[in-house]
C-alpha cells in the first residue's frame, strides 16, 4: 500500500504519528486526541471483527456529534466496513426504514440524546439483515491485533466507505454510496481551497450524520490534522464559553443553526475574534463579518457530490454584479448546465444510490443531474436559482423561489422568507411567501411589496404574503422546511 494512500485507516495512522496528542475533536467537555482516536477505534474495530465484521459489512451509527461517533466511523472504515450514519432526529419508523434499505448488519447507538430515548426507540425494531445492536457498549470479545492489521492493509481506496442518506425534502431518502477515495480525494482539494490546515480549529454546527458533517467537517479535519470543535449544549451561553476558551479559527455550518448564539444577550461582551474565516458570520469576529452576506460567495453542495460542488477561496466582499454567487466548481468536477440544470461528473461524485444501478442514477454519458437550477456568469461563477421541482409556474412563466427569497432578504435587511407556489385555477400557480419574523418584529407588507418592484419582474413578486414567528415555521426531522405544511398557512 503506497504511503499516500487515501483510505481512512491510512490517513488515521499517519495523523496519529504526526499529530499524536493534538486534539482531533473538542465537543463540549469531551476531548479526543489523534492517538486516542487511533487507540479507541482499533479496540472497537477488533470487537467488530470478533462479531464477524470485515470488508463490506454494513455498520450503522446512531450517535450525536461526539467522540463515540468519530470512533465508530474510524473503527468501521479501518476494517473496510461500510458506515451508515443515522440521523439523531429519526423516528422509529424512519430508523426501521433506513435499517432495511441500507442492509445494516451491526448498529452502534447511543442510549439517548436530549429528549430522544434510543434504547426505547430501538426496542423491538427488526430488519432482515440486522444481527447486532450495541447500545453505548462494545462487543464482548476482541479479535487478535494481527487480524486488525491484516484487514486494514486489505482496504482499498476504491472500496465503499459510507452510505449517507439524503434528507429527502421532496422524495424518500436515498442512500448515497461514496468510496474512501471519492470522499478523501475531494476533501483534500477542498482543504486546499478553504485553507484548512493542521494548526486550524474548525467550529462546525453540522450534524456529523449528514454529508456536511462526515465529509466536510470530520474527515476534512482528520485529513488536515486539525481540530474540530462542536457543541451539543442546550444553553447557548455554554457554547459561547466553549468558543471563547477554544478559540476556533474557522467556522462552518448552517447560519440558521446558530441563531440562538447570535441572539444571546452575552454576545456583545464575548471575545470571538479568533473566528476569522468560514460562513457562520453572525458569531465571527465583528471586523470580518460582511456588511451584506449576499455579497460573499457561498457554497453549493449535496450528498451525491460528497459535500461541496462550488466554492471560492476568496472570502472577501464581492462587487454588486456578483451578488448571490456560489463560487466556481471545485477542481475535479466536470460541470455543465443543461436546460438550466447543473449536471456534474467526475471521481468525487457518488458511485450510485444504494440498491440502484448506475444507469438509474446517471444519464448515458455519465452525468448526474443535480436537480439544482443554476446560471453561470462570464467569469464562471455559479448562481443558484432553485430546485428543479420547486420551480413555480405562474401564468406560463417560471419563477425560482430562491431568487424571490433573496430579493425579500435584501429589501427587508435580512428577513428569512420561504417562497412557494399555491394552486390557482387561473394561473396554475400563485407565487406566495411566508416571512419568518423574529420575536416582536413586525412585517409591513405594503412597504416590502413596493420595494420589491425595484428588484423583481412583477410576475415574480408574491401575490400573497404571510408573516409567521420564526419558531412557528414547520420543520421536517431533517431540519429542512416542511413546504407542504407551510402551504397550510394560506388555507385559513
Amino acid at each position, binding site marked *: 500500500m503506497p504511503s499516500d494512500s487515501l483510505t481512512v485507516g491510512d490517513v488515521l495512522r499517519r495523523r496519529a504519528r504526526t499529530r499524536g496528542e493534538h486534539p482531533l475533536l473538542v465537543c463540549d467537555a469531551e476531548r479526543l486526541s489523534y492517538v486516542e482516536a487511533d487507540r479507541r477505534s482499533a479496540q472497537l474495530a477488533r470487537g467488530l471483527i470478533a462479531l*464477524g465484521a*470485515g*470488508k*463490506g*459489512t*454494513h455498520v450503522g451509527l446512531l450517535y450525536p456529534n461526539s467522540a463515540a461517533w468519530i470512533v465508530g466511523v474510524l473503527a468501521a472504515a479501518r476494517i*473496510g466496513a461500510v458506515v451508515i450514519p443515522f440521523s439523531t432526529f429519526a423516528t422509529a419508523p424512519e430508523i426501521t426504514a433506513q435499517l*432495511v434499505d441500507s*442492509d445494516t*448488519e451491526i448498529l452502534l447507538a447511543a442510549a439517548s440524546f436530549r429528549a430522544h430515548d434510543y434504547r426505547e426507540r430501538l426496542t423491538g425494531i427488526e430488519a*432482515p*439483515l440486522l444481527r447486532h445492536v450495541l447500545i453505548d457498549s462494545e462487543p464482548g470479545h476482541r479479535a487478535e491485533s*494481527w*487480524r486488525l*492489521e*491484516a*484487514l486494514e*492493509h*486489505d482496504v*482499498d*481506496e*476504491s472500496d465503499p466507505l459510507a452510505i449517507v442518506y439524503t434528507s429527502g425534502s421532496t422524495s424518500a431518502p436515498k442512500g448515497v454510496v461514496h*468510496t474512501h*477515495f471519492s470522499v478523501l480525494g475531494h476533501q483534500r482539494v477542498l482543504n486546499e481551497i478553504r485553507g484548512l490546515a493542521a494548526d486550524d480549529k474548525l467550529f462546525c454546527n453540522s450534524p456529523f450524520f449528514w454529508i456536511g458533517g462526515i465529509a466536510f467537517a470530520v474527515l476534512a479535519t482528520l485529513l488536515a490534522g486539525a481540530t474540530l470543535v462542536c457543541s451539543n449544549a442546550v444553553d447557548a451561553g455554554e457554547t459561547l464559553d466553549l468558543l471563547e476558551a477554544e478559540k476556533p479559527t474557522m467556522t462552518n455550518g448552517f447560519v440558521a443553526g446558530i441563531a440562538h448564539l447570535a441572539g444571546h444577550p452575552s454576545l456583545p461582551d464575548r471575545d470571538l475574534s479568533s473566528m476569522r474565516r468560514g460562513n457562520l458570520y453572525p458569531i465571527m469576529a465583528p471586523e470580518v463579518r460582511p456588511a451584506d452576506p449576499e455579497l460573499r460567495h457561498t457554497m453549493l453542495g449535496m450528498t451525491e457530490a460528497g459535500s461541496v460542488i462550488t466554492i471560492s477561496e476568496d472570502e472577501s466582499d464581492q462587487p454588486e454584479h456578483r451578488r448571490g454567487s456560489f463560487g466556481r466548481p471545485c477542481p475535479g468536477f*466536470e460541470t455543465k448546465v443543461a436546460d438550466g440544470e447543473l449536471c456534474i*461528473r*467526475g*471521481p468525487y461524485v457518488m*458511485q*450510485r444510490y*444504494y*440498491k*440502484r*444501478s*448506475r*444507469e*438509474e442514477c*446517471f444519464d*448515458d*454519458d*455519465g452525468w448526474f443531474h443535480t436537480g439544482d437550477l443554476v446560471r453561470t456568469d462570464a467569469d464562471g461563477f455559479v448562481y443558484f436559482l432553485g430546485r428543479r421541482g420547486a420551480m413555480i409556474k405562474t401564468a406560463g412563466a417560471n419563477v425560482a423561489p430562491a431568487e424571490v427569497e433573496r430579493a425579500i432578504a435584501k429589501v427587508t435587511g435580512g428577513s428569512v422568507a420561504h417562497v412557494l407556489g399555491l394552486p390557482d385555477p387561473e394561473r396554475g400557480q400563485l407565487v406566495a411567501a411566508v416571512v419568518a419574523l423574529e420575536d416582536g418584529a413586525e412585517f409591513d407588507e405594503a412597504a416590502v411589496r413596493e420595494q420589491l418592484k425595484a428588484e423583481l419582474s412583477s410576475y415574480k413578486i408574491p401575490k400573497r404574503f404571510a408573516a409567521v414567528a420564526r419558531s412557528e415555521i414547520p420543520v421536517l426531522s431533517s431540519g429542512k422546511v416542511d413546504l407542504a405544511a407551510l402551504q397550510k398557512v394560506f388555507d385559513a
Partner: protein
Amino acid sequence: MPDTIDKLVRVRAEQHGDKPMVIDTESRLSYSELDETTRAMAAAFVDAGVGKGSRVGLIMPNCVQWVQIAVALTRIGAVLVPLSTLLKPPELLAQLRVASVQALIAVEEFRGHRYVDDLAGAVDTPKLPALQNVWTPAQLTSGERNIDAITAAVTPSDTLVIMFTSGSSGPPKGVIHSHGNALAAVRSGLTARCIDADTRLYLPMPFFWVGGFGGGVLSALLAGATLVTEEIPRPETTLRLLERELVTLFRGWPDQAEALARQSASVGADLSALRPGSLEALLPPGLRAEPGARAKLFGMTESFGPYCGYPADTDMPRSAWGSCGKPFDGMQVRIVDPDTGRPVPAGTIGMIQLRGPHMLRGICRRGHEELFTPDGFYPTGDLAHLDDDGFMFYHGRSDDMFKVSGATVYPSEVEQALRTIDAVENAFVTEVSGAVGAVVIADSSVEELRGAARKRLSAFKVPTVWLLVSSDDDIPRGTTGKVDVRRLREMLVKTGDS
C-alpha cells in the same frame, strides 16, 4: 422479467417444477428441487454467518452441486467467486486475496490438485486477511430458517459474482457483475444462441468461466431450459450422455465437436435430437452451413459473455460473412481510434468500446474512473470495424497491432487479405523489427504472394518479411491452440525472406 437469481428460481420452480434444470453423469435436479434444496442450503449459510455481500469462493468441477451452491449463495445476496480448478497454489492465493474472499468452498481433490492442502500455510494468517471459513462441499449442511425476508433484500443492483478473466498477463482481474447486468447480458443472447424452454443444452465449458456460468447455468435458468454437463468431457462418455439425455443443442468447443463426430460412428450414439445452432461437425451434412455464413459469437468476461452475434441457425447476409454478427440489443458498441479515442466511421478499424446495462460494474481494487471513459464506455482492447449495416468484424487484440513508419498495421486485416489469395491456405502476420512479417501456408512463391498482396493492401501493409510453410503443423501454437506470436516472430527472424 425476474432480475435477481432468487426471483428467477422462484418463478422457474412455479412454471417448470418437474423439469430437470441440470443433469450430470451422476445426478439430476428439477427446478422445484433446485428451489427447495437451495433454500435449505442458503439457510445454513446464513446460520454460518454468510450473508449479503459476503464473498464466497467456489472451486469445483462442473456438476449439479456446483449449481446448487452457486444458487444458494446468490439467492441471499452473497457474492459468488468462482475459481478455476486449474489454478496453481500461488495463483489461487492471489485470486483469494484480490477478491477478499471470506469463505471458501473447495473440493478436496480434483485431477491431482489438493486446494485446501495447498492453502494450509496461508489460512488464518495475514496472507489471507479476509478468509474466515474453509469448507468442502460435503461439509455443507441444511438449515431450517425461513430466508424469504433475506432474499427480498437482494436487488438487481447488488453484486452477483466476481469472475476472474483467463488472461495470463498482469495481476488477476476480478470482474464484478450485478444480478441485473449479468442476467440482462445473458438474456440478450438467448435468441442468437437458439436457447428456449425446450432446449436441452450440453455444455462442457467450466462453470468458473463466464462461458460456463453465463452461457450454461444462467442461460438454462433464464430460458427455463435443461443444462447437461459433466466433470471431465471424454468423447465416449460425452456421446453416451448426449444420446441418453436427448441433447438438442451442443455448444462445446469446435475441436471437441470434431473429435466427437469422428468417434460417433464407432460408438454408435444416436444424436438425432440435435438441432441447428449446434456446432456444425455434429450435425448431418444437410443441416450444416457454409464456412463464414454463421456468426462467430463474440464477447468477453467484462460483457458477461457474448455481446455480438446472429441467430446460430441462420445464415447472415452474404456481405456479413466472416463477421461476429451485430451487437445484441442493449449493448452500445463504439469503435474509436486507438490513439485519439475519437469515434471512427463505419468500415474503419479501431478499438471496441462498450457501454450499457449489460456491462461489468467494476473490477476488484480498481476505481470506476480508472476503468471507464468519462462518458461511461469500457475500452476493451479488442480491435474491430463495423460495416454499413452494423455487422462487426473482429481484428484481434490491440496489443497485437503495430506501427510501420508511423502507420498502424492490424495483423488480422493483413491475414484476412492474404487468405483471399487462391494459393493461400492460411496466413499469420506479426511485427518483425519494425516491418510486417507473414508466415503463410501456401503452395506458391514469395514473389507471387507479394504481387497478389499488393493488389489487396495499401503498400505499407504488404508484408516485407515472408516465410512459406507447407502445413498447419509448422505453425507454433500454445496449449489452448492459440498461435504463439513470440515464436512466430522468432521463425520469421531466423528464416524469413525479405
